[in-house]
């Protein structure tokens, strides 16, 4: 089913079903029991372990690994869930090479860290395969009610921790399906078999959390009303807006937001139905840029280039991700910024890039340009908080650089409103950091409403 466009080659069904199945299978298949035991035995059970210090959620990593090695994967999973109820997803998507595994003493000593992420997945998968509910028991109902807005990692972690304390939680999400970026924003090969949805179900199994989907702040949900109706509010609303390139022709066909396409990839049951360009250019240097670049390659795009305006060392995508892109056949072009988009018949056909350089720390164009033929151009240049969603409270809830300002407890300038995840200032664009925000906020909310 080729799209008949004179200039642009955008088509679905570029590959066979077998190729799609192979391309979108698990990036790191689950360790089997023997592999896990042997890998666990590599852990030195460090005292005051650097990996724990590096984990944003402070999981007791040596302890959970030791529990795998002693044949107690259930206990191991409990150790993980104690600190991170989304330990299953974090095991899949954490950039471990820049967190726990980077500081593993075996990485330092021999360049081969203990595979902490894969062991975490082994334990959490084992637990979830054998248990329908989280290992926590809800305390007696407190009669307190909290609104958690956004059922992504921050909101889920916050809702779960509050539910454990016996509070009632209404968990709102703008989409029809919960999970946030776990469900819509992560490359398919990192979380196969509908894991994000299964994990949400697992989190909700604690009880006391009522999920309300299709409820969007600024649309059919009002912050002022929430504050009036609930004992506390947690905002884990992510970043709803997508940065634009600010170029002419940006509205033409074939110029797309990477996050939208990634969401489509995650939701489709049929990769062959997704049209993809033969030649793809991705603008950006973060995880999203790599995710879209790799996945368009996996959909059958022939020629995929990531264009990033600075050097490779400045890319937000981790080294592992950059390697993944390169071994997937993606070309990474650095020191190039978009200058213009070329379109014919209302469809993009090429992108003109200007070479850049560092001039005393300032990025500067050199005037030299290069034009890449492109059937699709993806924008992956960051996302923004949409202040309008705050229903005019933007005037009273403090923002800085377009993000919600929070204190160490993740409390916003409104005393009964907490926030976490990507929407807060200092948000790290990491699932695990969002989970920690939710955890911290839940503890603070619990203290505040129990006082």
């Amino acid at each position: 089913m080729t799209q008949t466009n004179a200039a642009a080659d955008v088509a679905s069904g570029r590959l066979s079903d077998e190729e799609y199945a192979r391309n979108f299978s698990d990036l790191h298949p689950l360790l089997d029991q023997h592999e896990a035991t042997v890998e666990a035995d590599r852990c030195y059970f460090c005292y005051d372990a650097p990996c724990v210090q590096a984990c944003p959620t402070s999981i007791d990593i040596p302890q959970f690994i030791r529990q795998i090695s002693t044949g107690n994967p259930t206990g191991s999973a409990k150790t993980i869930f104690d600190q991170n109820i989304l330990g299953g997803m974090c095991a899949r998507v954490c950039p471990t090479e820049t967190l726990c595994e980077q500081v593993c003493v075996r990485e330092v000593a021999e360049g081969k860290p203990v595979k902490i992420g894969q062991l975490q997945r082994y334990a959490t998968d084992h637990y979830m395969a054998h248990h329908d509910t989280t290992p926590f028991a809800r305390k007696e109902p407190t009669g307190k009610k909290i609104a958690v807005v956004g059922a992504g990692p921050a909101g889920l972690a916050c809702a779960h921790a509050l539910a454990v304390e016996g509070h009632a939680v209404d968990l709102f999400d703008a989409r029809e399906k919960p999970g946030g970026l776990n469900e819509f924003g992560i490359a398919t090969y990192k979380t196969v078999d509908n894991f994000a949805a299964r994990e949400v179900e697992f989190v909700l199994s604690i009880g006391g959390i009522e999920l309300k989907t299709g409820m969007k702040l600024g649309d059919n949900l009002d912050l002022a009303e929430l504050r009036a109706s609930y004992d506390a509010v947690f905002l884990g609303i992510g970043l709803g807006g997508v940065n634009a390139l600010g170029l002419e022709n940006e509205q033409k066909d074939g110029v797309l937001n990477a996050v939208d396409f990634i969401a489509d990839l995650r939701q489709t049951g049929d990769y062959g139905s997704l049209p993809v360009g033969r030649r793809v250019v991705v603008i950006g240097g973060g995880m999203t840029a790599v995710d879209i670049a790799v996945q368009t390659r996996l959909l059958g795009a022939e020629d995929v280039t990531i264009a990033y305006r600075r050097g490779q060392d400045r890319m937000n995508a981790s080294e592992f991700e950059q390697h993944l892109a390169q071994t997937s056949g993606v070309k990474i072009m650095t020191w190039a910024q978009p200058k213009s988009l070329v379109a014919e018949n209302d469809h993009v056909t090429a992108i003109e890039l200007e070479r850049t350089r560092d001039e005393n720390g300032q990025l500067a164009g050199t005037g030299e340009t290069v034009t890449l033929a492109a059937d699709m151009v993806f924008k992956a240049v960051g996302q923004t908080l949409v202040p309008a969603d705050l229903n005019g409270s933007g005037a009273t809830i403090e923002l800085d650089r377009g993000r919600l300002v929070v204190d160490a407890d993740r409390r916003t300038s409104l005393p009964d409103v907490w926030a976490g995840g990507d929407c807060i200032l200092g948000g790290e664009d990491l699932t695990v950091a969002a989970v920690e925000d939710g955890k911290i906020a839940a503890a603070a909310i619990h203290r505040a409403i129990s006082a």
Partner: protein
Amino acid sequence: MVDLRSNFIGIKSPNPFWLASAPPTDKEYNVVRAFQAGWGGVVWKTLGEDPAIVNVNGPRYGAIHGKDRHLIGFNNIELITDRPLEVNLQEIKKVKREWPDRAMVVSLMVPCEERNWIDILKKVEDTDADGVELNFGCPHGMSERGMGSAVGQVPEYIEMVTRWCKKHTRMPVIVKLTPNITYIRKPAQAANAGGADAVSLINTINSIVGVDLDAMAPTPTIDGKGAHGGYCGPAVKPIALNMVAEIARDPATHGLPISGIGGISTWRDAAEFMALGAGNVQVCTAAMTYGFKVVQDMIEGLSDWMDSAGYASVDEIVGRAVPNCSDWQHLNLNYIAKAKINQDLCIKCGRCHIACEDTSHQAITNMVNGERMYEVIDAECVGCNLCVNVCPVEDCITMEPMAAGSTDPRTKMPVVADYANWTTHPNNPMAREAAE
């Protein structure tokens, strides 16, 4: 050029590596494969009287494994050969004729009647075997019938049977000892008194290797039940080394040839046994784990090490460490060592710190000037070596002796060069007065 040829109580073999009496030496097929692989000799699996004994028909082995299924300890409830005596004798004769340069020793176990021993010795002599080994060791099964370790646990029986055997055969007699006793010197002395040409040890250690927590029964499990068996493999080596050294040190048995057995898996293990007095070594578990090929590196490794260390023949290493085997009371209490951590090698896992902090002497830091750093606090360090043993990095932590004349920061006492031990220590109520 290293000469690995071995002459153990007149029994010659091209190298000192024999296969111990056990499943690998139960029949011609296995033994020929062993000789093809290079083993210097075998002790044929223990012969008994007809009718042949029977074995269980369920599992007869159990094991302790490391995480990567590395076999650390091994346990068996197999009995002596379950093949007819005549079949074994014919095969022994045939193999010895075809492999005349290899040592062929035959292990024996019959009831404690002189007549029984006379009969079987005669039969073995007809095979032209090089010697016999009296199995006074097996702790399971046969011991219930008054044989094996039931004999080995009573020195008088050992002496009696040994004397019979020496009286009724021209062949050299090796007495295989059980470790399932409290004091190994007594059975060795008894063998010596009976005229044994040598002792071999250790046989297996009585054991239950594990419990099946589903079946709630010891493993290996036979129809819901388990019986104690004989433990061997790398895990038993330290026990065997001590027993070999005890016999080598005992003035009553000093010079009695010893065939060392117990968890020998490498050339280094063999060299250690020989240094403590073993004239040769016997191997079983390593072969049962990896096959007969393991002998190749035992031969080459021993040869290469001896070459690099300047030894020309195995006789030069046998017993060489025996003079350094002491008793605690004679250890030099004036020798003072402190742990030292090589900061370049340290990977900062913190295990030395937590081991010392939780279980020993609080002598290792974990933070120095706000940095993760592990340093020995000499004023607390008693030199116990725990940190050395728990450190995952070889040679990262070493024990450094303090020089005479310096002051031990822990005791504030000067380090003296003189040797002084417990026997004369002021805290010893039994201390002898210094000679006037």
